[in-house]
Structure formats: structure tokens, C-alpha cells
């Protein structure tokens, strides 16, 4: 247990759960799916935070106000800046030309992310009207909006406003980082110039009537365009390495309150809503006039008597350990959510969590050592009849592996998994879907994540939708999953690798089958499974004697065990 909690793999697993909640993606989505080439640094921050068991109250403060926390060293400062990526990586209206509307939309996205992630409460409805179900008013919404409007997001992008002002990303990495950034920015100037030239020529050519293009003048223009494009490509290739930029937030120079906007419309400002926190919840600290209020927001969220923060996180952790939360709607603790199945247990765990220093690892340890967690997964007909969903925990319900676990396990069994930590998945100029990324040998948490642009593998296996906070993923059973196990080159390839490993052991068929089962399912084969496999091997001999060297009957057996239901469910 303690060994597993200490393993660096822990953060990769549990960090990914948080990335679902943080709607992490490396592209913008929405109206322009531009790449976020630096977003991965936030991903790594989250993984490290779980590995280092950063107390959850501190984890919240770092993500909401890391830029405002004291830091003893430059690396620590960088780490805290990176943490605020939580507020910076959401989808934005990149093509919005009205600054007021752009910033209001961005604040809205941040309010939604913050309230869902930390409070399991949707505040965003109150943008246009007092919340229909929960006691959140428009005034509450604009009080929060004032906090985020007083916050500047450093995107590393040009706004679409008149004049196209630039929002620089934050440079980390000290003097070395600054040097890299200078080189990069200098190169950007040259590259953009080349890009503009090529664009102008392209336009010029396009505007000519078709006939003229064949004329000598048209041909000359085409030649100039070809040259300009070649120059652009050549300059692009000379790009210096990406500096350690991070998407982050800082306070604006002049923090200010927001007006309540009638129906959320920017052109009908109503009364001023002083920056603050939803009135129905415990009172928060006062926000100084010269501060955005993010630090106070974090303090308010983590005060011991805050009724939601600890419960919501405890429920998230429970959910990932048991497959089902004590509250079945992990992102909705409001009146339209499900009531808790075990309210006293939820409260007890929440109190323990905040009293014992908000340690995620100790909470996991406590739960895993419980009798409920250690219960067997055998079914019982009577219980199944009255409580098929296992709400009352009469057994440990078999849990479905998520898309990352399926892929990681396939690679791991095949002996191909590498514990490397790739960096950016998208370069600055491309945000295409990267279906081929499945073949990279790294863990799935390091694969590209495109907002509104997930890979077909991710989609097939119910990956979290990065447009919004996802506390609970879908769990579907569709034929496309079967097709993946039957036909995908990826599964065939892992089966081949595993089969090749097997033949290095000089052992009889029985032992070989057992080795496959132990490797893939972490258990020996039952006698009937052995018998079935033998029958298969025999049948294969009669059916198809011609198999290639890399593609043997054992490849097919390995693939069959990968395809079996027991591989996909954890019991």
C-alpha cells in the first residue's frame, strides 16, 4: 500500500482524474481550435502535486492564486505560476472582437470551472437570472465575476480585438528561460513577416482572373508566391526550441467590481456587485481594494466550515476507488443532484480529510484499508435483485477500466510501456486530431488531448469531454470497442510483442498459457480456460498451417485474452 502511494505512477493516475475535473486540454476548442502548446506544464504540475501529496487546501490555493502566494525560490515561483493554468486553459471565444464580451465570456468559463471543480455547484446559470434550483443569485455571480475580471490571463495569443493586441504567456525558467524567450520572440517576428508576405501574394494571385494566371505576369507572381512559401517553411524550420512558457494568470493593475448585467448582456449594466462569494454559504474574508480577490476566494473555499469543498473532493476520491460516488452526481451537489447514499459517512470522511491536513494520500489509504474496499466482488442473487447498482456496498463491484488504463495495460503487458514524460503534444501551428498518438510508448496521461477534438480511441473508450468539468465519465459498451480489440493494429501489435516475449521462455503450452493469463489478467487460468485455449490451438493447426514468423498462434491467444471481458473489468 505505502509502496503504491509512493510510486511516481500514483500521480499519473490520480492526476489524470483531476485533469478530467479541470477540463484540461491542449487546444482551445470553441470558435478557433488553436493549439495550447504550453498547457502540458499544467498537466505535469497536477501530476507532481498528487505525487507530492500537496495538501488539498493548498492545491486549491495554488491553482486559483499561485501567483499571489509567497515563494522561496525561483523554481517554486515557477511551479506556483504554472498551477494557475487551471484558470487559463479553458476554451475561449478566440474570434470575439469585442473585448468586453471576450473578457466576460472568459470570466464565465472560469466561474463555471471553479464552482464545478471545487464546490460541485453550477453558478454559471446565475449569469442571466437568479439560479432556478440553487440559492445562487445574479449578484453572487457578478461578485465572483468581479474577481475574475480583475484577473489577467496570460495566454500567449493575440486577441481578436481591433489592433490585435498580444497577450503574452508567462516566462518561467529564470535567466535561461528569458534568453530562450527572447530568441523565440525574435524568430516569431521574422516568421510572421514571412507569413504575411506569402499571404499577400496568395491574395493577389487569387484576385486575378483565371486567364491572367497563365500570362507571363501571372506566372511571375506564382513564382514569387512559391518562393515566399518556401521561405516561410524554411524559417519555420529554424524555430528555436519553445521557451518554458506557461499559461497563467496575474492580478490586473486596477482590480474592479463588476456590474450585474441584465440577462448577461454587456450593454445593460445594472447595480455594482462588490467582489465576494455566494451569500448563502459562509461569509468569506474581505477583499482589499487593490486585490482581485482570488487569494480570498481560495481561503474562503478551504475554511473548515465550508460545507462543500471537502465533501466534494472526498466524494471524487471515493468515486474513483469504488466506481460510484457516495453522491452519484459528483459535479452537482445542488438540489438537482442526487442526495448522498451514506450522508454520515460522507460527513465523517470530509471532516477527517480537513482535520488531518487535507492529505489525499491519507484519505485514499484510509478508504483502501476499509472493509468495504476490501470486500470481494462475487455476486449474490438476492442483493443483486434489490440493489443491482451496489449503492449499499454489499460487494466490491467490478470496475471498468477507463481508456487510459486499457491502453497502459496493453502496453505494459506487451513489455512496451515506457515511463517517459513527453512534453508538448501540439506544436504552435497545429491542433489536428492525433489518432496516431496511440502508438507512442508513454502512459496515456501524456498523450495529446484536443478540446472538441479527441482522438478516435479516446472517444471510443469514453474519455472525458474537455469542454467541461467531468467528475464521472460515461461507461458505454458499443461494438466499436469490440472492433478495436478485434481489428486495431495497436492491439494486434501489442499481442505480437507479448507473444514474442513468451517464446523466449522454453516451456510447454500449459505453462505458456498460464504465463499469458498471469501477465494480462494477474491471475492463473482456470482449468476450463486452459481447456478452451488448448482446443483453440488445436483447431488452428487444422485451419491454418500458414502463419508468419511474427504472427503465430500465440499472437492470437494473447489477443484473445486482451479481448476478454476480464481484461476490461477490475474485480
Amino acid at each position, binding site marked *: 500500500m505505502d509502496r503504491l502511494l509512493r510510486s511516481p505512477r500514483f500521480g499519473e493516475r490520480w492526476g489524470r482524474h483531476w485533469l478530467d475535473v479541470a477540463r484540461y486540454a491542449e487546444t482551445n476548442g470553441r470558435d478557433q481550435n488553436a493549439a495550447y502548446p504550453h498547457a502540458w506544464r499544467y498537466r505535469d504540475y497536477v501530476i507532481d502535486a498528487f505525487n507530492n501529496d500537496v495538501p488539498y487546501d493548498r492545491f486549491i490555493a495554488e491553482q486559483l492564486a499561485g501567483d499571489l502566494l509567497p515563494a522561496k525560490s525561483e523554481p517554486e515561483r515557477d511551479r506556483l505560476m504554472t498551477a494557475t493554468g487551471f484558470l487559463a486553459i479553458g476554451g475561449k471565444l478566440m474570434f470575439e472582437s469585442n473585448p468586453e464580451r471576450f473578457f466576460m465570456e472568459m470570466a464565465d468559463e472560469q466561474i463555471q470551472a471553479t464552482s464545478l471543480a471545487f464546490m460541485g455547484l453550477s453558478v454559471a446559470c446565475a449569469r442571466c437570472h437568479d439560479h432556478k434550483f440553487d440559492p445562487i443569485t445574479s449578484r453572487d455571480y457578478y461578485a465572483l465575476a468581479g474577481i475574475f475580471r480583475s484577473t489577467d490571463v496570460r495566454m500567449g495569443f493575440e486577441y481578436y480585438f481591433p489592433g490585435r493586441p498580444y497577450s503574452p504567456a508567462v516566462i518561467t525558467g529564470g535567466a535561461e528561460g528569458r534568453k530562450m524567450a527572447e530568441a523565440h520572440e525574435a524568430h516569431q517576428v521574422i516568421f510572421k513577416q514571412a507569413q504575411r508576405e506569402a499571404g499577400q501574394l496568395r491574395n493577389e494571385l487569387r484576385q486575378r482572373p483565371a486567364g491572367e494566371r497563365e500570362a507571363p505576369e501571372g506566372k511571375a507572381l506564382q513564382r514569387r508566391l512559391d518562393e515566399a512559401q518556401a521561405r516561410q517553411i524554411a524559417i519555420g524550420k529554424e524555430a528555436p526550441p519553445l521557451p518554458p512558457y506557461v499559461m497563467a494568470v496575474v492580478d490586473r493593475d486596477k482590480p474592479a467590481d463588476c456590474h450585474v448585467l441584465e440577462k448577461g448582456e454587456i450593454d445593460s449594466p445594472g447595480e455594482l456587485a462588490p467582489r465576494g462569494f455566494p451569500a448563502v454559504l459562509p461569509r468569506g474574508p474581505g477583499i482589499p481594494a487593490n486585490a482581485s480577490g482570488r487569494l480570498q476566494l481560495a481561503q474562503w473555499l478551504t475554511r473548515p466550515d465550508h460545507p462543500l469543498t471537502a465533501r466534494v473532493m472526498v466524494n471524487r476520491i471515493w468515486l474513483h476507488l469504488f466506481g460510484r460516488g457516495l453522491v452519484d452526481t459528483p459535479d452537482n451537489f445542488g438540489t438537482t443532484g442526487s442526495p448522498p447514499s451514506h450522508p454520515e459517512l460522507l460527513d465523517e470522511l470530509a471532516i477527517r480529510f480537513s482535520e488531518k491536513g487535507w492529505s489525499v494520500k491519507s484519505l485514499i489509504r484510509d478508504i483502501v484499508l476499509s472493509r468495504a474496499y476490501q470486500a470481494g466482488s462475487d455476486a449474490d442473487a438476492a442483493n443483486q435483485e434489490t440493489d443491482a447498482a451496489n449503492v449499499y456496498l454489499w460487494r466490491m463491484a467490478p470496475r471498468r477500466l477507463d481508456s487510459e488504463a486499457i491502453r497502459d495495460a496493453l502496453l505494459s503487458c506487451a513489455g512496451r510501456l515506457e515511463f517517459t514524460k513527453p512534453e508538448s503534444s501540439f506544436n504552435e501551428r497545429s491542433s489536428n486530431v492525433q489518432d496516431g498518438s496511440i502508438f507512442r510508448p508513454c502512459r496515456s496521461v501524456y498523450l495529446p488531448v484536443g478540446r472538441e477534438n479527441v482522438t478516435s480511441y479516446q472517444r471510443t473508450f469514453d474519455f472525458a469531454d474537455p469542454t467541461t468539468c467531468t467528475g464521472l465519465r460515461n461507461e458505454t459498451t*458499443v461494438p466499436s470497442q469490440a*472492433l478495436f480489440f478485434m*481489428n486495431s493494429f495497436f492491439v494486434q501489435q501489442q499481442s505480437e510483442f507479448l507473444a514474442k516475449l513468451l517464446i523466449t521462455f522454453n516451456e510447454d503450452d500449459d505453462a505458456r498459457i498460464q504465463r499469458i493469463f498471469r501477465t494480462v489478467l494477474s491471475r492463473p487460468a482456470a482449468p476450463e480456460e486452459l481447456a478452451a485455449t488448448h482446443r483453440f490451438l488445436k483447431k488452428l493447426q487444422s485451419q491454418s498451417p500458414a502463419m508468419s514468423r511474427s504472427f503465430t498462434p500465440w499472437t492470437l491467444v494473447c489477443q484473445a485474452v486482451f479481448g476478454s471481458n476480464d481484461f476490461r473489468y477490475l474485480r
Partner: protein
Amino acid sequence: MPSRRDMLRGSALGFANLAFAGLCAAEAGVQRRSPFDVRAPHFPARAKRVIFLAMRGAPSQHDLFDYKPRLKELEGQPSEVRGRKYVGLPWEFQQHGQSGQWISSLLPNLARHADDLCVIKSMKTDDQTHTAGFVQLHTGSARFVRPSLGSWVLYGLGTENQNLPGFITIRPTVQFGGAQNYGCAFLPASYQGTPIWDPQRENGGVQDIANRRLTRDLQRTQLDLVQEYNAIAAKRDPADTRLDGVIESYELAFRMQVALPEVVDLSKESAATKAAYGIGTTATDGFGRQCLLARRLLESGVRFVEVMDEDWDHHFNLKESLAARCAAIDQPIGALLDDLKRLGMLDETLVIWGGEFGRTPDNDRADGRNHNSEGFTIWMAGGGVRAGMSYGETDELGYRAVSNRVHIHDLHATILHLLGFNHTRLTYRHNGREFRLTDVFGDVKHAIIG
């Protein structure tokens, strides 16, 4: 009657035989051995299959079907809601067909079929947020995870083509409830909808449809081994229906490898057909392909097909955006209805068109409309609905349904009725009680049944 599970346990011969047996059973209409085998409903009914044209975002009834001429006079004046003004009617309305159905100039092709439509103008739903509304439209419940309409229909009727999924959703949204809208919740996993993500791509964007290494026989032999492993696992946990779902999904996947590429291959359709659906024309290509594919699926015996179109949420820029959406769907839907008639299928095919809710006569800025869950329009055609009918009314300005109101639960009850089910008896036992699509609600609206 032996269950599928019993069959698996007793089967020493492997799954090829079982799958074959399942096929024969379907054809002869005998014992149901697979969850997909055809089943008779509670009573004879005209509708045998459903196509649901889901307009995600909430289309404006005021500009399409629910003609409120007073709005022309009131345009720009303050409305009964503080801060809002009435929005006029940018498009002309005309009566069409013998029935005199009012349809706006945005939908000229649909108007050709006015006498086939049953337009319900008094729809009502519980919530006016998109996710809640869209999920309720599909599952009856915005609050709990419940099986979708298509899953209930597949559960009730089985499907006629054992080589294709019985419930297919074309281009579903990943947001607004995502997979919940075609999910089966607690119903056995086999009843879940199968997405075809993109009809504009090869094989509809369904990956890994072909095995490049094994002959079909060899693949079958290997699949038998997988299924034997699964049957052994099933013995250990006899009540876990998720396992049956996995087993079924393999068999279906195996059969789909041949059937799916054929059915999604639109190149087999004539140039005239493709042109009729607007394929090859920028505005209509996407939705045209979705509709033509849907027609091919229905023709092949798929029980429930959903076709989705997005971006009907027109708070502003109504004139341009609504016109664009209508231009995208009108010709394809017109062609679809033509085709269903030509093939003699419309009578047995229930066509449903609608969004999660409707819109208001007024708005806080010109050229847009707000959400409205209190009154909106959907239409149905074929499948035993009363043709050329307008049912229910909203008030003078279209704020709320005032006569013959039809709640989503009532719509669901009526749809099930059209398919031959008493909605209170199509149930599934879960967590110690019987569940149904309409929960404890739902009135069948007999007036709209032909």
C-alpha cells in the same frame, strides 16, 4: 424459455453456432435468444421503426410553424418580460396543402409534405437549460441517468437486421449529456445506441471495421475463444448484464464488419438521389448525407435511427443563423420524406422532428430569441400519426402552451403507443422496482393518432 446465458453455458460448440441460431430465430420469429431478436409489442401497431431528427439548441417555433402575426405589429415594443422587446417575424408564412398547415418560407421542401405532418404546437418540458432539456427529450429525465428513448424501443421490439446495431445515432453531440442521449443506463448494455460519428468519412468514421490479417473463418475461430473466456466469466457473475453487453457487442461487431461498410457506402446511390438530398452542395452536404444514410439504415431494418443537427440556439443573429440551419436541413428532410413514400416505408416509419425546447416571442436584443420550455413545436409524420394535423395551441404570442398541452412525458407515451406499447407496461426491473420511460407520468394523446 432458455436465456441467452443458459445457451452460452450449454454451448460446447462455440459461438458461431449460437450466432447462427440467433439469426434463424429472428427470421422465423420464434424463441428470442438474443437481446436483438424481434419481439411483438403489446398490441398491433403501424409504426415499426423510428427516425428521430434532433435539432440540438432549441429551434424557434415562431419562425417556422407557430405563426403569430401579432408579432409583426409588436416588433420592437417592450414585452411582458422586463428588459425584453418583441422580435418581429423576418419570414413570410403561408398555408400549405389541403390541410392548410402554416409553414414559414424557411422550409419550402418540408412544406411540400404539409399534408403528411402532424405538427404539435403545444409542447412543454421541465427545464430550459440545454443539457437538462436535451437529456430529458431523450430519456424523460433531466435529473437521473435513465435509458434513452431509442434504447427502450430496441428493448421493446428488438431489431430486424441482426448484422447492424438496432439503434444508431448519426453524428451525436459529445456535449449536452453526450452519450446519455443514446445511453441505456440500467437496461442491458446491448440496447445502447451505436454512434456513427461522421458520414462524410470512410465507413462513417467507424474505425477498425476490417481485420487486415485474418480470414473471416480464422477470425471467427479466434472470436470463439474470446467468447468462451467471456462465458466462463459470465458464470462467475450471472447477474451482471454488462457482461452480456460485451458478449453481444463482439457478435455484433463481427457481423457489422461486412454489413456496415455496405450500408454506409453512399456511392451506391444514384446521382439523382444524392442530388435530391443536397449531397455535393455545401449547405446541405452534411445533413444530406446523414439523412440518406439514415434512410439506408431504416431500409436495412435498423429499428431506431437518430440524426442530429447542432447550432439551433439563436439568441442573436437569428436572421442569418436560423436561415442557415434551415437551408441545411430542409432539402434533405424533404428528400427523406419523398424517399420513404416512394419506398412505401413512411406508413411504418415514425418520423420525429424537434429540439429540447423552443424560443420566446421576445428577447433582450433584436434579432434573437430566448429559451422557452413552456411552449414549443415538434412535428411527427408517418408511423400511424394523424397526417395533415395541427395539434394544440400556444397563447396569442407563443409564450406558453395553453390548449392540449403535450409534455415530453406525453410525447414519449404517445410514441410508445404508436409503436404498439402501453407505456406503463414497458418496464424494466432495476434496484428492486420497475422502471419505465415515462416514470409515473405520461398521457397518450389519442387525438394525434391516425
